[in-house]
C-alpha cells in the first residue's frame, strides 16, 4: 500500500494542507515508512472481533431539552480572524 506522490498530494488537499516542493518527497517517504509499519496489523486474524469504539461501555448520555445561555455576541466573535457587523467574514468560496 505504498503511496505515490500523486496520492500524497491528493491526501494533502483533502486535509487542506499544501506541501512545499521540498517537503513532498520527505513526507511521501515518511508516510510510507509509517504505513509499512502499521501493515503489521494485517498479520492478526480479527474475524468476529467487534471493533472497540468505546473503552468504557456507556450508552445513552443525554441532556434534557432546556435552553441554556450561550456566549454573548462579543465573546463569540472575540477570536474571529475577520468579522463584519455581527458575522464572521470569509473569502468567497470561488
Amino acid at each position, binding site marked *: 500500500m505504498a503511496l505515490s506522490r500523486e496520492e500524497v498530494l491528493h*491526501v494533502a488537499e483533502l486535509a*487542506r494542507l499544501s506541501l512545499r516542493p521540498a517537503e513532498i518527497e520527505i513526507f511521501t517517504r515518511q508516510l510510507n*515508512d509509517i*504505513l509499512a509499519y*502499521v501493515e503489521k496489523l*494485517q498479520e492478526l486474524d480479527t474475524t468476529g*472481533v467487534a*471493533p472497540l469504539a468505546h473503552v468504557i461501555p456507556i450508552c445513552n448520555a443525554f441532556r434534557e431539552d432546556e435552553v441554556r445561555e450561550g456566549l454573548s455576541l462579543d465573546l463569540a466573535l472575540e477570536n*474571529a*480572524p475577520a468579522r463584519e457587523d455581527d458575522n464572521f467574514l470569509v473569502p468567497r468560496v470561488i
Partner: protein
Amino acid sequence: MTEPLYSLSISQLAPLLARGEVSPVEVTARLLERIKERNGELNAYLTVDEAGALEQAREAEACLGRGEAASLTGIPLALKDVMVTRGLRTTCASKILENFIPPFDATVVARLRREGAVILGKANMDEFAMGSSTENSAYGPTHNPWNREYIPGGSSGGSAAAVAADLCIASLGSDTGGSIRQPASHCGVVGLKPTYGRVSRYGLVAYASSLDQIGPLTKEVRDAAILLNTIAGHDPKDSTSVPQAAADYTEALGREIHGLKIGVPREYFGHGLDPEVEAAIRAALKTLAGLGADLIEVSLPHTEYAVATYYVVAVAEASSNLARYDGVKYGFRAEGKNLMETYLNTRTQGFGAEVRRRIMLGTYTLSAGYYDAYYKKGSQVRALIRSDFETAFKACHLIACPVSPTPAFRLGEKLADPLTMYLSDIFTISANLAGIPGISVPCGFSSQGLPIGLQLLGPAFGEAEILQAAYAFEQATDFHRRKPPF
C-alpha cells in the same frame, strides 16, 4: 522552614497554609519570581499569568482568613497549555492558536478554581499533544531540568519540567499515548493517567478523543491523589465521562501491599530495553517484593501491535479533530485569494510538521476504501489489546513495567525519523488503547544522572490501587526526594 517555599509539594504546603504559617500570596509571589528568573533556561512555561495568579492568591488568602479552606486553597499550579482557561491564552503550543483566548474554562480548570487553586500559567507541550519530546512545540522545546541538553519527554514536557524544577507546586498534563507518564519518568516526578472517562475531557483540546485523558504531574504520590480527588468525577458536558462515582484516592495511601499480586509482562523486557532502565526496574520490583508483593509473570501477547494500532486509531481521530482549525472562527488565518487558498495557507503555515504528518496519515487511513483496513482493523486489534489486560488482571492486581525503553535522549537526537520516536511509546501506549489507568513513579537514575520511572498499571477504575502501591514504593525509597541540579 529551611526549604524554599517553591520546593514544597501540595502535601507539605497545604498544612502550612492552613495553619497560617505561610501566606498564599507569598508562595505565589515566590514562584512567579522563580519563574521569571529561571523559566528562560527551561522554556517550561508558554504563558505566565502574573496578575491573575496574584489575584487568585489574594482570594485564597481571604478564604483562609475566613476559615473556608478547600483542598487546594492557595496551591499554585501549572496547567499544560492543552486545556482551555477562560480569558487566558491557550495555544496548544501551536502557531494556529497563537492568540486564542478561550471564553470558557475546561471542567477540570473550573474544579481546580472551585477548590481554591492558583493558576500560575500554561505549560509547554508538543504541538496539539503530538509528540514524545516537547520538541514539536511551535515555541521552542522545553529542556530537562536534570540536564538541559536533554528532552524532558512529551507531550506534557513543560508540566513535568516545571514540577521537577520547582517552577510550580504541581501540574496537570494530558496523556494520549504516554504523554503524562513518560515525561514524568524522564523528569523524575510522579505522573498519573486515569482510567479513560474518569476525568472530564470538556475543555481538553482534543487530539485523539477515545484515548485522551487529563491527569496530575506531581512531586509525590499523595499530591497526585489529592489532585485526582478534585478533577475526577462525572461531567454531564462530556458524554464519554463515566457515571461511576469517584473514590477518595488518598484513603488507601499508607496501606500495606502485602499479598498484592504484581504482574510483570514478559513482552516488556527485551524490546530494545536500555540495560540501565531494566536494572532500575528490576531493582524496583525487588523493592516491591520486599514490601510483601507477589511478583508473577504475565503475558500481554499483542504488545507488539500496540504502536501500530495507536498510530492508526489516534491519527484518524486527530485528523478529524483538527479540521476545525481553518482560520474562520478563531486562531491564526493566513490570507489567500479565495477560500481554498485561505484554508491551505492557514493550515500549512499554522501547523508544524509532525501535526501535518499525522493529519495526512489520519486523512489517508480514513479515506474511501481504506477505512476497513486501517481504522476498523485498528479498533479490532484494540479490543484484543484490552482483552490481554483483562486476562492478565485475572491473575494479578497490578502490572509493573518500565515507562520508556530508554532514559531521556538528547534534544534533536530523534527528530530525523518519526517512526523511531513513535516506537519509544511502546510501554505506555497500551494503557491508552485499553483505557486503563497508569502511574509513573521515580525509581532510579541512569549513569548520566537522568531519571528512570517505574510504571504501575491497574484495571479500569483501579486508581486507588495503583496509587496505594506507588505510595508504598515511594515511601520505601528516596528517589522522589532528589531534585535536579537546577
